Every structure is written in C-alpha cells, then in structure tokens.
C-alpha cells in the first residue's frame, strides 16, 4: 500500500485520504448501479443506518477505536439489518418500503442511544465515534486503507466474475430463473456487495449520507451510458472522482467529509440530468422545441400552398384568420420561412418562392404517404420489424416500400 501512497503527489496524510476516497468511490459507484437498477436504492440507505449500532457495539465489546475493528461491527450489523428486511418482507403482510423504514429507524435509533451512552461514560477512548455519523476522512490509518483495498478488490472481482449472471437477473429475473440461475442467492449476493461498499465508506461519508455515494454515481453514469458493461465502470470512475475531490475539499475547509462529498456528487447528478445527450432534460427540451417549430413551419407552408388554389395570395393577417393559428406562432413561422428563403412578398401579400413550393409539395407528399400507409400498409407485407415513422415514412420504411405504397395509392385512385 505504501508505494501507492508514494505515487500520489500529495503529503502523506492527504495521500491516504485520497486513496481511501478513491477506493470508496469506485466500489460504491459500481455496486450502487446494481441497487439502483433493482430499484433498491433505499436498501442501501437502511443498511448504512443499520451499521451505526454495529460500530458502537464493536467499540463497547473490544474497547478498540481503530477503523477496521469498528467497521467489522458495522458489517455484522448491516448484514443483520439486511436479513431482518428480507424476513419482514417474507411475512407477506409488510411491503418492502415499510420494511426498509422499520429497519432504518430502529437500528439508527439504537445507534444514537448507544453513542450517547458511550459519550456519557468516562472512557478516554470514546471521543471520535460521532465521526461515523457524518464521516471524517482525516485520521484514517494506512492499515485501515489497506483493509478497504482488500474489500474493494473482493467486491469488484465479484461484480466482474458474476457480471452476466447479475445482468440477466437484474434485467429479467423470470428468465434468469428459467435458465437455472439461483436468482435468490444472487439477490442476496447483491445485498452483501452493498454492505461491503457501505463498510468501506462509513468512516469517510458517515451513516446518514452514505446512500448518496451509492445512488449518485449510478444515476449520473446511466445518463451517459446505454450498456450495463459501460454504466458500471463509468459509475466507478465518477464515484472515484467525486470521492477524491470531495475529500480534498473537506480537509482544506475543515468540515466533515461526508456532506462535502455528497454535495459534489449531487452536483454531478444535476449536471448529468441536465446536459446528457439524448437523456438530458435540456437536450430533450431543445429537441422538442425544434420539432414543434418545424411542424409549425410545415403547417404554414401547406396553408400557403393550398391558399394559392383558393384565390388571391393572402396577407399575414388573413392567413392567421384562415389557419386559426395564434398570431405570435404564425409570425415566428413566417420568420423561419423567410430565413430559409421560402417566401416571396408582394407588398402585404405572401407567396411561396420556388424552394418554398418544393418544400410544401414534399410535406404534402409525406402526408399523403402516411395516409396511404394507413390504408394500404397491410397489403405491403413488410417482412421484418421495421416500423413506420409518421414524420418520415420514406426513411423509416425504405424507398422500395415507399414507392410500392405510391403505386398502390395510384391504383386505388384510378379504380374508386
């Protein structure tokens, strides 16, 4: 472990913290994905709260204050909490969310009572247990970090080795059972992995906020990756980045590490939920606005094209009246069309320019093709799973079928 710490270009105590935060981030990020995809994020919350009395009892029993001993207690308490949750659920009368609530509240209360009791005793060792509430990275020993490293290695190896089985179970438990996977055992294993991640993070992030390190990297990674084999490593990387930057910030500002790490993590989530391509809120809003604008402009094009056949060219005001569009929307569409060079004007009156007329005809053809699909689609006998996109049937069905649709339509027109 020493050489790793030497590799980090920081002073010794910072290097230990950075290494620990990295181990925590990678493990919690990777394992958290499994919990988030099972919609079991709050199990992680309950387990980290349940770990607190374990820390206290380990202290009372052994009198030791080193992180490794206390975290062993945390692991045991976490496992007991996990079993209790499963047990309560199995009674069949209590739903999972209620079981989570019961375990979280009761274990955490017990932890607080024990913490208070320990603080009231005259044990000179007792100072510092409250670190496990909000987390404190400073003061971690190289030895503790070595234990964390082993735990992280075990957890990540299990995820890598069991990857296919885990993926199948997460995606489709019924199918997983039918091909002979031990679905129950795998679900228990995933809970055990959560406990490992919590044990690694409890000292640094604290019982109350640990859930954020499980959930936030997973949510952020999912925004950018579309395959589980990418989401898991990406979540690990995000977790590591968040953990390291948060831990360093906290030690500079001399505040508890947990809240700082969590704030950084939440920042990552907010950014990814906003800007991620395809899934991001802003990305989708922009696309929706663009589509609406295009549809509006196409509608006005068609209005102008049909108006030509009905009488003299319209003014903008007449067009608004005839097409029943809000004046503002119409002005905007006309501006867009002007910019695209699709309009000519004669005083107040509007004409379609040559490209404008061509565009209007293209829109009309697309609409006609869609009507033809609805009427003659079954007769086409499209052999595969291609599905028509109403905005562009030709592209979605292919030229061959679009042409055949045209032929069918013409044939139907000739023989009414």
């Amino acid at each position: 472990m020493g050489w790793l710490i030497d590799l980090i270009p920081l002073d010794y105590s910072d290097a230990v913290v950075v290494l620990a935060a990295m181990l925590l981030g990678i493990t919690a990020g990777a394992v958290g994905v499994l919990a988030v995809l099972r919609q079991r994020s709050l199990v992680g919350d309950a387990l980290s709260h349940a770990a607190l009395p374990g820390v206290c009892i380990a202290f009372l029993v052994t009198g030791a204050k080193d992180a490794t001993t206390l975290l062993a207690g945390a692991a045991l308490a976490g496992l007991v909490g996990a079993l209790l949750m499963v047990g309560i659920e199995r009674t069949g009368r209590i739903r999972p969310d209620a079981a989570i609530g019961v375990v979280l509240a009761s274990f955490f209360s017990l932890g607080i009572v024990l913490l208070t009791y320990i603080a009231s005793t005259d044990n000179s060792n007792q100072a510092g247990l409250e670190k496990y509430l909000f987390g404190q990275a400073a003061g971690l020993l190289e030895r503790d970090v070595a234990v964390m490293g082993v735990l992280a290695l075990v957890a990540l190896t299990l995820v890598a080795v069991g990857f296919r089985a885990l993926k199948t179970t997460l995606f489709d438990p019924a199918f997983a059972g039918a091909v002979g996977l031990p679905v129950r055992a795998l679900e228990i294993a995933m809970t055990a992995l959560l406990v490992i991640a919590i044990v690694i993070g409890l000292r640094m992030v604290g019982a109350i906020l640990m859930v954020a390190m499980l959930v936030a990297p997973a949510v952020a990674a999912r925004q950018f990756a579309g395959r589980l084999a990418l989401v898991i490593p990406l979540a690990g990387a995000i977790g590591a980045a968040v953990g390291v930057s948060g831990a360093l910030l906290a030690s500079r500002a001399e505040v508890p590490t947990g809240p700082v790490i969590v704030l950084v993590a939440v920042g990552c989530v907010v950014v990814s939920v906003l800007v991620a391509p395809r899934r991001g809120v802003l990305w989708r809003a922009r696309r929706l606005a663009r589509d609406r604008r295009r549809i509006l402009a196409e509608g006005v094009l068609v209005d102008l094209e049909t108006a030509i056949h009905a009488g003299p060219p319209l003014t903008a005001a007449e067009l608004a009246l005839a097409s029943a569009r809000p004046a503002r929307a119409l002005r905007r569409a006309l501006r867009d069309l002007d910019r695209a060079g699709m309009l000519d004007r004669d005083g107040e009156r509007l004409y379609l320019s040559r490209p404008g007329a061509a565009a209007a005809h293209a829109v009309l053809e697309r609409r006609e093709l869609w009507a033809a699909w609805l009427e003659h689609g079954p007769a086409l006998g499209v052999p595969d799973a291609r599905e028509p996109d109403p905005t562009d049937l030709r592209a979605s069905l292919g030229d061959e079928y679009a042409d055949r649709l045209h032929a069918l339509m013409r044939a139907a027109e000739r023989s009414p």
Partner: protein
Amino acid sequence: MTDTPTPALEIRRLTVSYSAHPVLWDVDASFPSGALSAIVGPNGAGKSTLLKAALGLIASDGGQTLIEGRPVRTARDRVAYVPQRDAIDWDFPITVREVVEMGRYAATGWLRRVGRSQAALVDACLERVGMTGYAARQIGELSGGQRQRVFIARALAQQAPVMLLDEPFAGVDARTEASILKLLHELRDEGGSMIVVHHDLATVRSAFDWALLLNVRVVAAGPVGEALTPANVRRAYGAAVHSEDEAQASWAG
C-alpha cells in the same frame, strides 16, 4: 396407440396456492411434441401461474414437471421461456443484441466471451424475427411489438426443442401478431414444440393444434376441435362470470 411419443411438457398433479387460496388445483396436463399448443382460460384461471410453477419459478404445493420425459431441473437446456413483459424495466441499460445474447449464456457458460460462432447464431436469431437492423438499439427505444420480437429471438437463441411463451400477443400490434404466429408455425413445422398462454379463443381455434382449457382445474384438453367445444368453453368461462362464491364452490366440488 401403444407407441405414444414422449410429450414435450408433462405436468402431474400440480397444485399452487397463494395464502391458502388455490390458484391451480391438481392439474394434470400433457402437451404433445411437435405441436403448437395453447393454454386458454378466463382471467385468473392460472394460465401464467401454470407455466411459472412448471418451470419452478414459483413455489408449488406439490406436483411434478417433465420436459421431454425428464424432470425440469435436469432439462433446463431443453426448454426456452418467453416471460411476460410487464415486469421488465424498459429503461434498463441494455441493447437488443445483448438481450438476445442472454439466450446463449446458459449454453456457453456464464464467464466466457461470446465467440464468433455464437455471434453468428445471435445474428441469425435477430434475422429470423426481422430485427437485424435494430441490434445496436437500446431495448427501451423499441415499440411493444419489436420488444416481443427481441424476447422471442432470445428464446430462439437458446436452441431448445420446447418453447413456452407467456401471453406473447399482449400489447402487440396486429402485424407483429401475424408474423409471430407465422414464426411459431415455422418452428412447429421444423419439429419444435410450442406452448403458448393465450386468451383469445378465436386465434387459438384458427391457428393452434392443441389446447388446454384451464380454470384453476383442467376443464378440457386435446386437439383444438375436441377441447374447445361450446360446452367446454361455457364450463371454463361460465364460472368466472358468476359470483366468487359459486366459482369457489365449483372447484371445491
């Protein structure tokens, strides 16, 4: 009649109950090999439960399942299963190709890479359900019918002689239903045994070979023409329209 071939799926004395309430009661059923069979019955008749319990996915109170004459535990490689799609999280980060590859995991081992011959097999399965152009898509981007095609491709990839499908036509457009039905006929003609949970009697009458009419108990079983007589259908569906008490009385005998 002395040399009857081994049935594709045989269920013996299967009973399943949820909190002391029987969902399936003493069901004996046998589905012929090389046929397209249907499990039909009213809502709540236990059709899906029959498949799940037969595969050991839910606990049963007793009973035995044989796939091609062997206990299901030792015959997992002989049966492919297409589960209902309503419990799936469609936002799951997975591509169409990966879903179909899942059908190969049990055969290739849960650790090894998907090799070239496996990849070719996956391609062939995608081709067969008309989804070749969609391999790289996210499963959530597909329509209901396309998703069902992918699940069937995954079952094809298992290369098992017996295929169990749970409501494959639910939430599927008419075009997809027709092409899935055509595919099932092709598989049957190649010697496969297809067993389909379905609720539409008309389709079963016109397109299936064999039917099991179920309402908690077996009402009738046999070639479609013999099993789905008006009298049998009334016996299966009639109880469901009466009050709960009468329905219970009818199975309590």
